[in-house]
């Protein structure tokens, strides 16, 4: 049986891709950002996920204004890094997991989520920057990836509650897949940032950290935050944090935080990430030095 063993919430600032690709990750500006991901990079080496369901938003790369799907799932074999206007990032192609992706798509549709199926697309920094932050610079990404794209650009985006419920439905879909797979769910985008207008540069450190706090434990207050609160408190692009709620919904009732990190600034934004373990009595704790053996033994 496939099982969800961890969730990661993370920013996906495009400048981090540039810093990683051009070796600036240790300089004074980027050092504190990349250092915060060091723990997670080490942890991922022992976790060895088979598949990451990577929730992100496309930034006018694969999708333009012609078609605007609220929730779309990538069921393709592989995805190339998108050319976002300055040439594609020189990072490995992303390998999909079509069998699991199609299984999840079918299950979600039966579960009354109207998913858009994508078989071909290029993936932009929303997806490739988190891979760089969690895995560094390998020759090939060490996991398969199921891209799950959410519209958070054209209003209205889905509600936080809907995102949370989608996460719960993803958990049911994964649990009903027969192959034995170690699956993680990542919710990316955020933290507070505003990229436009005279209020650009808005950062709300306190709100961001309260949001991370709310992901931990068994509370579900975050699902009831209305869009207007994200916009007022965290800037117009802070709305991307609804995508973290898909990850949180997939973790089940209770979570434990294994690691968290927050830093201001990165370009126009706050950057943060959190690593969560579902803590629902399933015995999925694979932290510690014997993690790899335990995965192999299961």
């Amino acid at each position, binding site marked *: 049986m496939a099982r969800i063993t961890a969730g990661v919430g993370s920013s996906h600032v*495009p*400048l981090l891709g540039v810093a990683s690709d051009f070796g600036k990750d240790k300089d004074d500006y980027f050092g504190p950002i990349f250092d915060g991901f060091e723990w997670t990079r080490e942890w991922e080496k022992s976790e060895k996920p088979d598949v990451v369901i990577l929730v992100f938003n496309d*930034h*006018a*790369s694969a999708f*333009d*204004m*012609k078609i605007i799907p609220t929730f779309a799932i990538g069921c393709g074999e592989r995805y190339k890094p998108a*050319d*976002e*206007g*300055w040439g594609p990032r020189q990072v490995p192609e992303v390998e999909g997991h079509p069998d699991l992706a199609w299984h999840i798509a079918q299950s979600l549709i039966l579960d009354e989520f109207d998913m858009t199926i994508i078989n071909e697309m290029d993936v932009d920094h929303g997806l490739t920057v988190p891979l760089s932050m969690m895995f560094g610079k390998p020759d090939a990404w060490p996991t398969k990836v199921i891209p799950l794209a959410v519209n958070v*650009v*054209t*209003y*209205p985006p889905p*509600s936080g*509650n*809907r995102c949370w419920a989608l996460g719960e439905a993803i958990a049911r879909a994964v649990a009903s897949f027969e192959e034995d797979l170690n699956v993680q769910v990542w919710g990316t985008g955020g933290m*507070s940032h*505003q*990229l*436009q*207008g*005279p*209020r*650009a*540069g*808005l*950062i*709300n*450190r306190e*709100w961001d950290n309260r949001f991370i706090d709310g992901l931990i434990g068994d509370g579900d207050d975050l*699902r*009831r935050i209305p*869009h*207007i609160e994200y*916009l*007022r*408190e*965290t800037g*117009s692009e802070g709305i991307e944090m609804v995508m973290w709620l898909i990850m949180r919904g997939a973790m089940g009732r209770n979570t434990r935080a294994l690691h968290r990190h927050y830093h*201001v*600034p990165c*370009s*126009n934004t*706050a950057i943060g990430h959190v690593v969560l373990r579902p803590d629902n009595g399933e015995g999925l704790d694979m932290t510690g030095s014997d993690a790899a053996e335990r995965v192999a033994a299961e």
Partner: protein
Amino acid sequence: MSGPQDIHEYLAEFEDIPGTRVFTAKRARQGYNLNQCAMSLMKDENRARFRADEAAYLDEWNITPEQKDALLKRDYNRLLDLGGNVYFLAKVFSTDGQSFAQAVSTMTDMNFEDYTAMMVAGGRSPEGNRSIKDKR
């Protein structure tokens, strides 16, 4: 939770956020051709043609004279008012060789140096920037 929501109330609240243009359906419709035009700059050959003669390139698109003027002047706040969206307008910044932060700073009342200093010092405070009517 969420029962049915009144769409008019939902949209009206967005007008109360200082210095912010939310990309509503109204703006998406108004800016459709403008955003698709910006999107076309993802292709190298289009960037080259745009750089060679910006006005002639923009004439190929069904955009309004106001949108064309604002694009030529790189007046990003006005472009947002005319239905532009920042992720699409970013194709114009990158064609100009500008970073996101450089371009975004032009929408504020600060120069790039001051804007960068503000970000390094923790960013713009939400205090006084949440609501126009409640002044908070």
